[in-house]
């Protein structure tokens, strides 16, 4: 299946929350494909999905890129969900609740040099004090302040112990 059409759905999708909303919309649209006999899917899903999703479906219908039969539409949305699940994800732990602007800034930074926007899974953990931990494709990097503080304290303690000895 040609996945280039799916990229339209993922513009401005940069967090797990937004991704989950999009997945919910795709599931709703898939269900409606079978339930509705209306020619235009966009009319059937109006009010049931987000406005942006509805607009994308309308644009696809206008360009004749959305399949017409319910079975084909179902396959289309299955393919969309599969594509969305496979988007690269990066988990971040932050000590504060980031604003939309901050998230977009990080997203744009990570997008540089990559052909797709990674999906950020942000968790708020105040106990890291500052900094962040990053996890991507099984690799874990700890840039949190807590760890750094631990290292400094351990160093000081071992120095003091050696001096006493």
């Amino acid at each position: 299946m040609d996945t280039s059409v799916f990229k339209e759905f993922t513009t401005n999708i940069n967090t797990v929350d937004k991704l989950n909303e999009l997945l919910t919309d795709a599931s709703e649209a898939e269900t409606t494909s079978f339930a509705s006999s209306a020619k235009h899917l966009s009319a059937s899903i109006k009010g049931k999905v987000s406005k942006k999703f509805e607009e994308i479906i309308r644009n696809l219908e206008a360009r004749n890129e959305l399949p017409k039969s319910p079975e084909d539409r179902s396959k289309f949305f299955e393919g969309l969900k599969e594509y969305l699940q496979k988007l690269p994800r990066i988990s971040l732990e932050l000590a504060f609740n980031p604003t939309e602007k901050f998230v977009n800034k990080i997203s744009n930074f990570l997008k540089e040099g990559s052909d797709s926007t990674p999906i950020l899974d942000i968790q708020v953990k105040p106990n890291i004090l500052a900094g962040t931990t990053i996890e991507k494709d099984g690799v874990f990097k700890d840039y949190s302040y807590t760890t750094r503080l631990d290292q400094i304290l351990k160093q000081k303690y071992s120095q003091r112990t050696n001096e006493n000895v």
Partner: protein
Amino acid sequence: MKTFEEYLRENGEVGHIQSIIQSIVYISGLPKVKPKELVITETGIKGIVQGIEEELVEVLLLSPDKASIGERVARTNDNLKIPVSASFSGRIVNPLGEPIDGSGPIMGEKEERSVFQKALGIKDRVKISDQLDTGVSLVDVMIPLGKGQRELIMGDQKTGKTTFLLQIMTQQAKKNTLCIYVGIGKRSQDAKNVEEYLRKMGVFENCLIVFASSADPASLVFLAPYTGMTMAEYFRDTGRDVLIVLDDLTNHAKFYREISLLSKRMPARESYPGDIFHVHAALLERAGRIKKGDTSVSISALPVIETVQGDLTGYIPTNTMAMTDGHILFDASEYKKGRRPAVNVSLSVTRVGNQTQSQLEHKIRRALVERLNLYKKAQELAHFGFDLPLKTRTDLNVGERLEAVFDQESHTIVPKPAALILLGLVLHDYWASKSIDQVRVERTKLVEAFNKGLFKNIEASFSKVADLVSLDNLIKENEDLFGKVLYSNILTTSKIKEQVERGQK
């Protein structure tokens, strides 16, 4: 052991559990994980990497705690290690080295050893030359075992295999050999029975039980013999001889089959995994006799295989026969006849035990093989019911007395010198005119006297005895001592013996 967070920071890799099938989990992530590496979950559950696929890692979880989907997993960059120390002697532990006998933690400094060790090579090994005294006269004389030998114990269930093994453990523990009993997928009551037997015999302090019950996860049962062997290697490296009993490898194979089928590995013969031979062979290769400075130390292994209706041609029995230095077959028909131990001597084999025997023992064994064969033929003739010639009656007489001497109760240990003397008495017809019950009574008295040390002089003279004639002379020289123990004059018996000889002429 470090925590999950510490390992996560140290190794910089994380995985997430994607699916769980009983003890097996599939994890995404962990890009540089290695086979057989130990991993740890957020909740502290340990697991061993079994397989690595393109996107998922297959891990066998060890702890009975339940993992959950999405739980994070970190690498430890190490293999599974268990604690070992001399303080483990006299304790019962699980395959992770944790005490389960209710006697508190195992104190003292411990060493960590990897469970999956490679066996030592040829250059470290030494020829097996010392006999492993089993305390069971039938085995010591007819199927001798050597220190460092791997001898398979085979037979149907309820044929006395475990009792026999406990007798060997008792005899060896009395000689300061460290004895390890590994219970693999057994009932908890079985472990208790083993502990009670060894405590009753006063040797539990020189023993160690590694136990995984049938209720434990398959991963722990699979691990049990490896833990036992690792502990055996530790004690061997401290300079002690070790005896390890693996009871039983049939169960081990079944649990490994369960794990492999759950991992969706292609089943081979009888649905066992294709590498079942390697798994057992690599384990048993870790036993043996090795150089240690100017001397040598050994791990003698007694793996147990349970057969079904005496079928020796099964997959696992034939596999283990091929990888061991002989086998002792426990026969259900011998058991039903009342023989204890119910060993079928003609179908049992020892490949290296013969080189450990002295000249006298060789000669006695040859004489016994001849007499037992004659006894078998005489028994077949006796079935016809007609009058038997004198020679056949004599063969029956000797055979019955040999059986009476070889029969041994579960709590009786017969030292080897005692066994040789008893057999010498039979072969020289000292018991020819006595009833079987009298023979049994006198046998018991003589064994007790040996165990009390009353025959120390005879034991000391054994080195000068090289054949059956000199054995006979040794018995006659000590007739007073025999008289004291048996309350009868052995020379009187020898007069009867002369009468029998005249009658034969």
